[in-house]
């Protein structure tokens, strides 16, 4: 089980801020493929991965990173703080 978090327009498009996901995905990209296959709203949110960022256990990471041992995955658009 893994916690998956969504922020900003990713959260709005998918329609929830957080969910627990049962997955055997070995990389972030695999998880994205699994989620996208679920429903149109996921497919829409993940349509252009170059427009997204991912954090694993609250550290910025990349889509080809392995998920082994990861407890929290977050997807969001490029940050606009400051």
């Amino acid at each position, binding site marked *: 089980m893994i916690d998956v978090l969504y922020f900003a327009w990713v959260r709005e498009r998918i329609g929830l801020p957080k969910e627990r996901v049962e997955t055997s995905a070995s990389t972030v990209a695999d998880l994205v493929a699994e989620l996208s296959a679920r429903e149109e709203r996921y497919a829409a949110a993940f349509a252009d991965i170059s427009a997204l960022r991912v954090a694993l256990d609250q550290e910025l990471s990349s889509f080809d990173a392995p998920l082994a041992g990861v407890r929290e995955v977050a997807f969001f658009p490029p940050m*606009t703080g*400051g």
Partner: protein
Amino acid sequence: MSVRVQPEPFDAGAELTAFSAIASGAGAIVSFTGVVRDTEARLSAMEIEHYPGMTESAIAKIVAEARDRWSLTEAMVIHRHGRLAVAEPIMMVATASPHRADAFAAAEFLMDYLKSRAPFWKKEIAADGASWVAAKDEDEDALARWQP
């Protein structure tokens, strides 16, 4: 070193006074304040979403890197989240150093990294709808100059 992530407004002047008081021994103090601006008088508010937990650790990491790179006696970051009114301060950075070049460089470094590496997302709320602020290429480009 002080990092605050809060929904409450803050007073940049009062923060600078407090920061100056603890930044003893520094000859040079630089501050940056970001304010909600409304260039075309169409904004009614700004909403800032963040990623609790990661926000604090990401900022702490950026501040630690600034301390490694420059001679700083003090550094401070305040960043708000939630709903902000036009003309309210969004965030503030302050640095103190014996050398003005260090204080300036560290403050710019903190700003550049907070813009693109701390998990905040801005949404502009206008009478005709709301829209997420898009990240700018120039903000990503700004990071390049800090590469060793």
